[in-house]
């Protein structure tokens, strides 16, 4: 068969119809990935608008733009949106789009579950934002400490929205993580043994294991909060023998791994793109891979460092302090590997590399302010001040937004087939980098001067006004810089220079297919003979007898977990509306729980069970044998 005819046949098999129904039922990982990216960017803009509203209030002392209650709702929505509905989903978007292309598979291992994880992400976000529309948004900060969040102090629906929206979102993250794990352990191209895996696969799988292990703790915390608030139990209520600190333990057992969930995949992306621009393989591949995994392992055991101020035994505090300092070692290994790669390479400066360099600078500052807060006396002095706000923004914007921007400039040509504009990229980078530092560096001094976080205004006698003005100016510059990149993307998507399949002369498999990639990936399932498939002599698609075309249906190869030896042919799911139907049923379910309509809850649980059964019901007659 000629290759054009083969490609046409594969397209017919894999393509979803270009109709509304087709777009609601598609399970293609590239579509799901792009939806994740766009939706997470919209949540970034929402959270950004909330941040600017907060800055408008804090620019000058004694401002009365927002009342305390509105201020509380907006800073809580800002934190919750950025941490839960932007930072992790944007990375899931990249991993969704890239992982199957990186491993030469035609889709992720569980395509329907993948589509489901996106729909749940979207609808849980809509559920959360419904609270803002009725004026009862969560208002107790993103970690929602009890007892302030119990009914006595927070009688409205605010914290019910918080607890239920988070439980809803954990479904998306858990399902998505399981899908990544099965994909990475089962679907890699023949020959891509663990020591040849692109580093993004290490960080994505570590992130996924952390999600699987840590999220149930958040689910339980939110469930207990709901029970305490509405059904009279006493988990967090000391009058009934409960313990408010239990919330903190459950929340931070989840919360600190979450920091690595929104950090590790970003480092994985940097480890992919930085060596390409340095024009050499990464220095210390094995060290970076092992450091990634160890960050995850130790990251599970440091949650108490968020709670040094609550009073605990010396020994337990010392252990957690030591673990917290140890963890910075693993990040340092990665930083040195990147610096050495640049040092010994011949770097080509691009917007993407600029953002990567900005990231390295910011993560060093954010890491250092993290190391000092791992020292207990220092933490006692500065916890709940703007020093911590500065730290969290250096690590979250520095270690998530900047790598995400680097990744956008690097992979957007692959997704759209068009190059982004470099001049606009340069403007965007400098505006964001300068704006960020002007905005967030003074927060360290505000914290040292004693300004507490989460206050809605402050008296002019404290003399914090000047530095707060600087913070606001910086925040506005940062926002303008981000908008420049968004405009750049919208313009370049249609009218940028054609990218070709491998504009950066990169080494990994996603650059082997055309840009944008065909719906089925590559015509022949590639085989891999080294760590840098496109930089070696081996022809990945060499397949004279068309054995690895697999065009009898939606098929791809399943391989062993360690050595990636092909052991089976994997039949992939057809397009289906069940993921969306199940998500809608879940949305109705959580709404019924919110309204405490218990019979409706029971009925909808039945509907959910039927949806799952319908989803899993085998369509035996359709199978080609």
């Amino acid at each position: 068969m000629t290759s054009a005819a083969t490609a046409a046949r594969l397209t017919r098999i894999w393509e979803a119809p270009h109709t509304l129904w087709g777009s609601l039922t598609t399970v293609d990982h590239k579509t799901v990935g792009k939806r994740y990216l766009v939706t997470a960017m919209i949540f970034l803009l929402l959270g950004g608008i909330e941040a600017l509203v907060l800055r408008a209030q804090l620019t000058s002392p004694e401002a009365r733009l927002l009342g305390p209650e509105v201020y509380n709702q907006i800073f809580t929505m800002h934190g919750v949106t950025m941490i839960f509905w932007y930072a992790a989903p944007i990375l899931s978007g990249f991993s969704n789009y890239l992982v199957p292309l990186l491993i030469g598979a035609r889709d992720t291992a569980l395509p329907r579950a993948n589509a489901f994880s996106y729909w749940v992400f979207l609808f849980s976000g809509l559920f959360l934002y419904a609270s803002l529309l009725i004026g009862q948004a969560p208002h107790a900060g993103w970690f929602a400490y009890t007892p302030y969040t119990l009914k006595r102090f927070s009688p409205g629906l605010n914290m019910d929205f918080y607890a239920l929206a988070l439980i809803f979102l954990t479904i998306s993250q858990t399902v998505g993580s399981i899908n990544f794990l099965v994909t990475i352990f089962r679907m890699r191209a023949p020959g891509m043994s663990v020591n040849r895996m692109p580093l993004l696969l290490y960080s994505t799988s570590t992130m996924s294991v952390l999600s699987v292990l840590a999220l149930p703790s958040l689910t339980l915390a939110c469930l207990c909060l709901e029970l305490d608030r509405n059904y009279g139990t006493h988990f967090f209520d000391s009058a009934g023998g409960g313990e408010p600190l239990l919330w903190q333990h459950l929340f931070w057992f989840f919360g600190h791994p979450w920091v690595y969930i929104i950090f590790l995949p970003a480092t994985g992306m940097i480890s992919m793109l930085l060596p390409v621009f340095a024009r050499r393989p990464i220095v210390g591949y094995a060290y970076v891979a092992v450091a990634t995994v160890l960050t995850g392992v130790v990251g599970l055991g440091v949650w108490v460092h968020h709670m040094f101020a609550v009073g605990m035994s010396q020994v337990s505090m010392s252990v957690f302090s030591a673990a917290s300092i140890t963890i910075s070692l693993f990040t340092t290994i990665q930083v040195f590997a990147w610096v050495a790669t640049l040092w010994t390479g011949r770097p080509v400066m691009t917007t993407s590399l600029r953002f990567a360099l900005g990231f390295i600078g910011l993560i060093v500052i954010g890491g250092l302010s993290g190391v000092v807060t791992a020292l207990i006396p220092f933490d006692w002095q500065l916890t709940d001040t703007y020093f911590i706000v500065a730290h969290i923004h250096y690590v979250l914007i520095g270690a998530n937004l900047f790598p995400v921007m680097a990744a956008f400039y690097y992979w957007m040509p692959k997704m759209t087939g068009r190059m982004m504009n470099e001049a606009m990229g340069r403007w965007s980078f400098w505006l964001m980098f300068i704006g960020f530092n002007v905005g967030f560096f003074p927060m360290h001094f505000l914290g040292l001067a004693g300004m507490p976080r989460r206050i809605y205004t402050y008296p002019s006698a404290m003399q914090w006004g000047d530095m707060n003005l600087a913070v606001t100016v910086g925040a506005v510059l940062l926002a303008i810089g981000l908008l420049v990149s968004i405009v750049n993307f919208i313009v370049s998507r249609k009218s940028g220079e054609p990218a070709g399949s491998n504009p950066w002369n990169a080494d990994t498999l996603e650059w082997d297919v055309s840009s944008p990639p065909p719906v089925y990936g590559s015509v022949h399932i590639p085989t891999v003979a080294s760590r840098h498939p496109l930089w070696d002599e081996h022809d990945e698609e060499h397949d004279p007898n068309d054995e690895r075309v697999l065009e009898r249906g939606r098929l791809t190869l399943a391989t062993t977990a360690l050595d990636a030896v092909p052991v089976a042919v994997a039949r992939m799911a057809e397009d289906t509306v069940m993921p969306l139907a199940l998500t809608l049923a879940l949305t109705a379910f959580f709404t019924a729980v919110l309204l405490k309509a218990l019979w409706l809850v029971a009925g909808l649980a039945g509907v959910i069970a039927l949806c799952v059964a319908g989803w899993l019901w085998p369509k035996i007659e359709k199978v080609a044998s």
Partner: protein
Amino acid sequence: MSDAASLRLDQLPWDVRRGSQAIGWFILTEAMLFVAMFFSYFYLARNAATWPPDAPPKLPLALLMLVILLSSSATLEKAKWHLRRHAETAARWWVAGTILLGIVFLGVQVLEYRDHLRSLRPTSDAYGSIFYTITTIHGLHVVLGLLMLLFVLALPRLEPRTRLPYHPFHNASLYWHFVDAVWVLIVFCLYLLPRLRLG
């Protein structure tokens, strides 16, 4: 890769492992939910003067439930044993028996609750809250396991190996054994341990 050329890909079997790997990770995340609940139980115990505040929960019904669930794991394995010998009908009967045992378990749990609720309510104190939360969430997991087994029983064949991209029966049985194992832990931590402490 040199050996890729010699591989006869068209002779490879259908992949059936993805579903089992996925359910393995799902069981792990569910296990962490119970870990978090047991942590909460012992953390709340640490702060209480006496734990449980009244008498420890009564043993006989919990032990009866333990026997029921453990035998249900055995009957499920018996069904697998029949299936390996291609005795489809016998296997189906054993699955049905397993489902029956699961329902009996839930019935006994209702009896246990009716007795227990006379002295302790979820709203009485922290102990009541965590006790009923752990046991009720376990009960919901039994319901989920039963739904899985019912789904399997409704399938036209229990183990259509060459046809399906996953092993429904195998996956459901993994989940059922997990639910059983959790009840062993519950009996040990919630029912036995307080008695051992009291001496």
